[in-house]
């Protein structure tokens, strides 16, 4: 579903991705781990189309299309979803109003009919319940005053409602306690399926106990330096990233 080839990118003149390549087939869950500064969040933002980053080389093919040539909202309509590491607050805009606007914008772009308020509320209530978010949260302004855990859960709620084909989870586990982690992981796992792929970006192996990946990649200094099965994550836990560097060198 996603083929990244030799991607190079920079921000404010600094090169972050230095020839990044990765293939994620449909239905697969891949994990990306790596030290700070490796460019993991950069990768996530570039795939989603953040305008601050500049791609200087390479290509990204998503569902057979040139992803880099599409605007962020077009990528969303095509099925790309980014669960942000630091979800943004938007005062005065209700959570459910936002979701309705977003979902309908995507449906419009795909030529599907838009959902009315009743249909929307029904869907929101169901999915919110499944994620363990109260109905009250649906009315509150987007992310305003939400705790860290609530914000992350809200990201997963949005994922559940928008039903994307490719989910990028950017350090979804950061700032979560064990219970919240379990709830988020359950939410993510419930969305796994043969038509959906996921890229789980994380520092810690712990999340991968709950969201078991099919493949694990180690990103360092803007490139993938090692790939393996789920046991690679455990090895990393034991030896640290320095261990990986030595082996690659």
């Amino acid at each position, binding site marked *: 579903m996603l083929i990244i080839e030799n991607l190079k990118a920079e921000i404010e003149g600094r090169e972050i991705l230095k020839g990044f390549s990765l293939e994620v087939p449909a239905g697969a869950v891949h994990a990306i781990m790596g030290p700070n500064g490796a460019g993991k969040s950069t990768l996530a933002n570039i795939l989603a189309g953040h305008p601050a980053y500049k791609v200087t080389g390479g290509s990204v093919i998503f569902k057979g299309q040139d992803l880099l040539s599409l605007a962020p909202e077009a990528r969303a309509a095509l099925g790309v979803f980014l669960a942000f590491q630091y979800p943004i607050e938007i005062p005065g805009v209700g959570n459910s109003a936002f979701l309705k*606007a977003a979902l309908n914008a995507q449906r419009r772009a795909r030529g599907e009919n838009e959902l009315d308020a009743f249909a929307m509320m029904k869907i929101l209530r169901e999915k919110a319940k499944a994620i363990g978010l109260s109905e009250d949260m649906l009315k509150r302004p987007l992310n305003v005053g939400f705790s860290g855990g609530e914000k992350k859960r809200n990201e997963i709620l949005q994922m559940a409602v928008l039903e994307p084909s490719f989910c990028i989870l950017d350090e979804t586990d950061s700032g979560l306690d064990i219970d919240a982690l379990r709830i988020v992981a359950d939410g993510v796992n419930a969305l796994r399926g043969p038509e959906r792929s996921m890229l789980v970006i994380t520092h810690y192996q712990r999340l991968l106990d709950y969201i078991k990946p099919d493949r694990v990649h180690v990103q360092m200094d803007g490139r993938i330096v090692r790939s393996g099965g789920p046991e690679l994550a455990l090895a990393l836990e034991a030896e640290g990233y320095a261990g990986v560097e030595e082996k690659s060198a």
Partner: protein
Amino acid sequence: MTQADANIAKLIDEPYKHGFVTEIESDLAPLGLNEDIIRMISAKKQEPQWLLDWRLEAFAKWQKMEEPNWAKVKYPPIDYQAIHYYAAPKAKSAPKSLDEVDPELLRTYEKLGIPLKEQEWLAGVTPRVAVDAVFDSVSVATTYKEELGKQGILFCSFSDAVKNHSDLVRRYLGLVVPPSDNYFAALNAAVFTDGSFVYVPKGVRCPMELSTYFRINAENTGQFERTLIVADDDSYVSYLEGCTAPKRDENQLHAAVVELVAHDRAEIKYATVQNWYPGDAEGRGGIYNFVTKRGLCKGEGSRISWTQVETGSAITWKYPSCVLAGDHSQGAFYSVAVTNNRQQADTGSKMIHLGKDTKSTIISKGISAGKSQNTYRGLVKMARSAKGARNKTQCDSLLIGDKCGAHTVPTIESRQPSARVEHEATTSRVSEDQLFYCRQRGLSAEESLTLIVNGFCREVLQELPMEFAVEAQKLLGVSLEGSVG
């Protein structure tokens, strides 16, 4: 300009939709301002002697006054002799029905989306709105007059009111904004041409929204309208004012005066959606909106609220205010003022607390974009007599881009120890991260900005009558198109 700013910049740049000119024959007074012109205006309107005298007195006062220059707005000197003070679409006589109104005029209002035909009342489906349409200096049509008249409600053009309800007008004209109040009020008192008049009798709750649409059309004219709304004891009225003007290279002056009087336990809600031509991106042309609006909460327990969405005008200079004279009276000011390109705004409110236990609320949302300057100026005054009075002021600024300015000039004067005044202010920017978040979820850049801005203005928008809240939201989106973050 960073890439971020450039991206947001592309979002705000739509041409003013109402910039068309209506080709119609106008009855135009010669350029200039002097006693003869005033007599001419008064004669054309067949006014009684007392009103002509009132005008001439105001003119004499105006000639001795100096134009104020303390606001944070800059403009080249206005040549008061280079303006036509009267411009009316030529008509053989006052039209008695819509059939007699020039079809060009009707087409104008249709284009603006303003309903001049009384709609069929579809039991609760289509809300009725009575409309007084003012084109340049005259009112061309007023709908629902008869039906409202059955309940004793007077809703007509100011000129009509002077002819048919002279005593009523005389009792209240200048009570709240006397000609001596300020330079532009004096000018208005001398040359005002038309506007709306509303009187709601005791105990009557006006059954529909009343509104006036002001349309400036002729070149080199000023528009000086005068509106007077009186709500007698225990009555209620909700009124909306809309304004548009064609696109021209020269500035045009709009110096209006609005006076509201609320008696015991009466309530007046006054809302404005102002979309005068704002000038082009270089700041050429555009309306000067220098307006004096004031409400007198005369009666005990009376209430007046001002809600404004100001998106147009080259310069907006106005302070809708309330004088809270009656004990337990309440005043409110809800405002969204948008400035883009090179617009300037110096606006806010004055809440003067005289009575006991009076309450006022000010919520001001300023949005600056482009190279514009947006200033909130407020005065909260607690007189010695205002025992137990309370005010809450919340003043928020949103900056879009790095070339605009937002300023706040609040003044609080209190001579009453038991009075409480609270003031809160915030300043924020629309960040590229907020926009990106919305876009990542599927909203276009424009939809995202509109969503964020509407969220920012929510508290004010929810004070507008529902039909107009929807229009206002769209207007906010349009007026910010092309602005750079």
